[in-house]
């Protein structure tokens, strides 16, 4: 097969038909197909979505050298005329129709005087009856021949080479050029009518003007092959020679506009019909087609290197391409043929733009005019595991807005590690705010972690032998545990602070109630309460319908210290087959010989606080620190929020949070942790401020205004020092000075109303401007001058403020009351500027929709956006 080179060409007449030729001419029809479809001969698969089936074969003509479709489009695609150049120099006009051509063009032939190959054929697109042929050299004949196929055939008197003629008429050359020369390629100019370009003799490109029948221009170049014109630029054409492609401008063919180098000899060149300035070249023995985008080559100016973007496409990597053809109308569509005859239908993809929107929709272009989009509401989006989706859902569930019960935030987050985090934060906040929990040395607790607590001072622990409880009838046994003040505090942080029996009991009961029977049993065993553990397991078996817990309880009950006992050996060998991490840890603990406890500590599925608490009880000082350090490093490395238990919310904790954000992008959680527990540190660490700011921006772009506002409220409550500056001031109509002098004089501790004698506090009315003493506007309903003392009541209620100061500055500032009750506030419509006392207007608008001012038709209430907000979204969770 490889001996016959297969060439392809799309039909100009039908967009779904193309021609191949090797030994014979074949017309194919392209059909859509599913990728899954099995394609059997005679149909051949072109691509994942198309197949071709053979429509017609034309094997009248032998030794085909080159083929060219006539550009004049026929209504019936099978009548589309073809010029076929042969190795013996004949050029035949044919088509795939079985019928005779009424015009008599089909079957016409051009016969040269001397047989030699036809190198190139070209139709004129302006006068589609003109056909040019370029032939090899012969001493006594011309090599460039132009015929008019529509001219009536010659009379039989034309006797030349009559023996070669078959049936049809003989085409007589209209013009002939290049006597005893070689024509490698021919093409008609698109710019001027009847101008032919020909690459000749390996050294020249010549322009022939057919109207005057003479050569009008010539240039010396070796790039004489494959001359092709650019349909988007009538002055431009391209040609090639060996490893070089040259781009020419007809107006100045002295030298090429541009030379493009190729790594291998070029075999074919073609301009893309659907895109400006794109030329495709094919090299010998190559499976790639190179696309040269020369659109911007002039942009760089003369001194700079030409800006040509070259791109390689590989329609099929498995074979070398022998030929290709651009689809005349379809966007960037190519058909390639390989040496093995395999055909590939390929579309060259244009630049795809691609953008994420702030609301996590991904938009990209598909083809020329269509955009495609996938956003977070789409099920596919869930596969991307974009943290923003989770952030949005959590924000809507009021994640982080539960102030009093921080653990609730973990509940709504719906993520196990976040739940653990918030539970711990809740506990730690409890410890920090009650003030009863003091670290060794009387240091107040500020969200320390186990690690920061233990490293604060030198650890010097005592060894205590703690008795096993509940083993009646046996020799009393003891477990070696370590105790120190730091360790006790650490245990408390792990919720293992069992100062007395009842605390342990309630802890175990809690776990049992939560259904964690195995965890409770393990905790009991770690506190030397085997009998209790056995009972817990039994209860677990009963309540959770897990009978295998009974057998575990049975095994546990048989616990013995005896080193060589059968119980011990069996437990050791079967331990690894237990699926529950707590049961594994429990038996590992009981069968541990050398007090190494490595199997227990390495039980990664155990909750972190249980592991740390266990370590704090059973590891010596050196080993404890070693263990915690390793664990701490690893968790920080992983950005695992469990590590907060160790690091607390000190600088190491912030590093851990940072790592967590780096890995997950979950800025929401870290911002909320900051707001709830680290407000005091924001000024010290810019990262915290950045997280909070980023999260607020995120809420903005997600249009979660209510959540954002509630978050700001929480932030300001937690912020001790400053309040946000006032945004709105009411000024006097006459003097333009604010009528709330207290606010403007904030910070000056004086009573602004002293001169009005407002000693009787709330009852005071202030109906004139405090500056110019002109009256304030009247209420449109009661017609009384408006005006009440406004601002914070800090001076008139001194006594209550002093009472509050015991609870700290934060509570004092929130307990201050406004001077006036809401009902007597100023209020006005933003549109018509009419207003009055708030409670009067509220009464009015219960029954009316228009403004209370007589001639005003403003629909004040319906313009108020507050009235449109659904009541559910205003509810601020407390």
């Amino acid at each position, binding site marked *: 097969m490889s001996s016959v080179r297969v060439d392809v060409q799309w039909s100009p007449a039908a967009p779904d038909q193309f021609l191949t030729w090797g030994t014979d001419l074949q017309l194919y029809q392209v059909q859509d197909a599913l*990728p899954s479809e099995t394609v059997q001969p005679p149909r051949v698969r072109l691509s*994942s979505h*198309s197949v071709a089936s053979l429509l017609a074969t034309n094997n009248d003509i032998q030794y085909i050298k080159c083929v060219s479709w006539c550009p004049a489009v026929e209504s019936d695609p099978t009548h589309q005329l073809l010029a076929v150049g042969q190795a013996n120099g004949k050029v035949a006009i044919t088509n795939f129709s079985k019928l005779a051509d009424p015009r008599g063009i089909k079957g016409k032939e051009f016969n040269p005087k001397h047989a030699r190959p036809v190198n190139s054929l070209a139709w004129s697109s302006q006068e589609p009856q003109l056909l040019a042929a370029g032939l090899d050299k012969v001493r006594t004949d011309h090599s460039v021949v132009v015929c008019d196929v529509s001219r009536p055939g010659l009379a039989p008197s034309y006797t030349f080479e009559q023996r070669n003629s078959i049936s049809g008429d003989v085409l007589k050359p209209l013009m002939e050029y290049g006597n005893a020369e070689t024509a490698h390629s021919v093409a008609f100019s698109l710019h001027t009518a009847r101008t032919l370009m020909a690459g000749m003799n390996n050294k020249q490109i010549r322009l022939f003007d057919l109207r005057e029948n003479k050569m009008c221009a010539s240039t010396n170049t070796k790039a004489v092959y494959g001359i092709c014109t650019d349909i988007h630029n009538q002055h431009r054409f391209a040609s090639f020679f060996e490893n070089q492609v040259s781009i020419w401008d007809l107006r100045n063919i002295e030298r090429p506009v541009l030379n493009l180098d190729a790594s291998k000899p070029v075999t074919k060149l073609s301009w893309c019909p659907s895109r400006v300035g794109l030329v495709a070249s094919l090299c010998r023995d190559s499976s790639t087609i190179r696309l040269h985008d020369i659109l*911007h080559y002039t*942009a*760089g100016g003369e001194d700079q*290197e030409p800006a040509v*973007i070259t*791109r390689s*496409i*590989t329609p099929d990597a498995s074979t070398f391409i022998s030929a290709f053809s651009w689809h005349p109308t379809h966007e960037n569509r190519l058909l390639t043929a390989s040496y093995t005859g395999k055909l590939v239908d390929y*579309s060259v*993809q244009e*630049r*795809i*733009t*691609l*953008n*994420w*929107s702030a*609301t*996590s*929709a*991904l*938009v*990209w*272009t*598909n*083809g*020329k*005019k*269509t*955009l*495609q*989009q996938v956003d977070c509401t*789409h099920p*596919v989006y869930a596969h*991307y*595991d974009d943290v*923003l989706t989770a*952030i949005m859902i959590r924000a809507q569930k009021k994640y982080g807005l539960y102030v009093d019960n921080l653990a609730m935030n973990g509940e709504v987050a719906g993520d196990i590690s976040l739940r653990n985090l918030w539970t711990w934060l809740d506990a730690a906040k409890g410890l920090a705010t009650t003030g009863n929990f003091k670290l060794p040395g009387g240091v107040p607790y500020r969200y320390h972690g186990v690690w920061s607590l233990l490293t604060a001072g030198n650890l010097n622990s005592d060894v205590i032998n703690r008795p096993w409880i509940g083993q009646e009838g046996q020799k009393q046994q003891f477990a070696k545990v370590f105790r120190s003040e730091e360790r006790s505090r650490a245990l408390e942080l792990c919720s293992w602070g069992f100062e007395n029996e009842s605390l342990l009991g309630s802890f175990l009961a809690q776990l049992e109630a939560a259904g964690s029977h195995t965890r409770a049993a393990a905790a009991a065993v770690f506190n030397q309460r085997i009998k209790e553990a056995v009972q817990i397991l039994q209860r677990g078996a009963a309540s959770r319908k897990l009978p295998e817990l009974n057998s575990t309880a049975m095994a546990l009950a048989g616990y013995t210290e005896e080193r060589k006992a059968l119980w011990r050996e069996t437990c050791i060998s079967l331990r690894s087959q237990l699926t529950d991490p707590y049961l594994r840890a429990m038996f590992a603990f009981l069968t541990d010989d050398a007090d190494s406890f490595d199997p227990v500590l390495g039980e990664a599925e155990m909750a972190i606080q249980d592991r740390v608490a266990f370590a704090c009880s059973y590891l010596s000082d050196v080993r404890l620190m070693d263990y915690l350090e390793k664990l701490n490093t690893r968790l920080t490395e*992983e*950005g*695992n*929020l469990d590590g907060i238990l160790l690091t607390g919310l000190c600088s190491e904790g912030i590093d851990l949070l940072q790592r*967590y*954000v*780096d*890995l*997950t*992008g979950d*800025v929401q959680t870290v911002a909320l942790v900051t707001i709830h527990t680290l407000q005091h540190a*924001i000024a010290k660490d*810019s*990262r915290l*401020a*950045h997280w909070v*700011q*980023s999260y607020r921006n995120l809420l903005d*772009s997600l249009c979660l205004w209510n959540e954002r506002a509630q978050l700001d409220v929480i932030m300001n409550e937690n912020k001790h020092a400053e309040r946000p500056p006032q945004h709105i001031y009411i000024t006097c109509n006459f003097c333009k000075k604010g009528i709330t002098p207290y606010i403007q004089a904030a910070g000056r501790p004086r009573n602004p109303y002293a001169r009005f004698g407002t000693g009787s506090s709330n009852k005071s009315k202030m109906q004139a401007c405090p500056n110019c003493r002109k009256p304030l506007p009247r209420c449109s309903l009661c017609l009384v001058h408006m005006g009440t003392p406004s601002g914070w009541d800090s001076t008139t209620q001194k006594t209550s403020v002093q009472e509050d100061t015991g609870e700290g500055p934060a509570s004092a500032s929130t307990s201050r009351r406004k001077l006036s009750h809401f009902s007597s506030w100023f209020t006005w419509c933003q549109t018509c500027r009419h207003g009055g006392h708030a409670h009067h207007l509220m009464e009015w608008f219960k029954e009316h929709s228009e403004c209370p001012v007589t001639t005003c038709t403003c629909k004040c209430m319906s313009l108020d956006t507050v009235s449109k907000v659904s009541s559910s979204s205003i509810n601020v969770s407390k």
Partner: protein
Amino acid sequence: MESQRHDCLVKVSVISNVETGHDDMIHDAQMDFFGTRLATCSSDRSVKIFEVKGSTHTLVANLREHEGPVWQVAWAHPMFGNILASCSYDRKVIIWQEDGHKWKKIHEHANHDSSVNSVCWAPHEHGLVLACASADGSVSILTSTAHTWEFKKITNAHSIGCNSVSWAPAVASGSADGSGRVGATPVQRIVTGGCDTYVKIWRLDGASGDWVEESKMEGHSDWVRDVAWAPSIGLPRSIIASCSQDRRVIIWVNDGVTGVWQPRELNTFDDVIWHVSWSVTGNILAVSGGDNKVSLWKENLDGQWVCLSDSAKGQAASEQRTL
């Protein structure tokens, strides 16, 4: 045939399609801050604005002032109003503003000698500032000050041409106390990519008021097509993605301590890579290539970038979830 085109991203056909009605190749499509408007631009010289409601897109404006293909559009932060910038082959940058449901041109910046390839608005902390990258090799920075527009130019930023520009997120050290006030002015930085294969970082020098080259990053071997500075949520780390004609995507990471940009190759693709774009939180990178594939990438625990559409997807996703 069209429906077969997005094979890598998803093998489903239910992704919503937007028929833009452009007459020629669309070059860019951008959603605004709230995801309620979509701006598109095309070789047909027009800029179109669509109102987005769910999956319906309504054309609200068709802006025809450019005299050549329009390459890119960019929305300003909504705190400045509804403002859109567009850049074109006609060497102009046009800034549009919505004024009572009408879009009009408020400024035309025609100070480049060649096609303007890319525009990008600065983070709002810097004010209304626009960076424009041009094929003449220069980058201009337009600043709006009280109804007038001033520009500074980085001449010869990239020889042969500059293809893309992206702003660094505004990260102020010790500022942004949560009330929106900014203490110290954050440093203005941009990253540019050009035909000279370099990715360069520029900083506005506070003292001189000039833009100075801060880093010149070598890594690509062909035209740099697009650069994208990742949203900085993982401060102090800075990340930039760049893609090139050389079929590679490089992730540049600056740990914020050493100040050195470490390149890491995301992948070598089968074809040219046109665009890179970060998700809002900066943890997913979308990449579009000449093989007509849009792929999504995520960094795993070991700092390796994994393709979410690969078969390894399930594994990668579960790794993320175990955090």
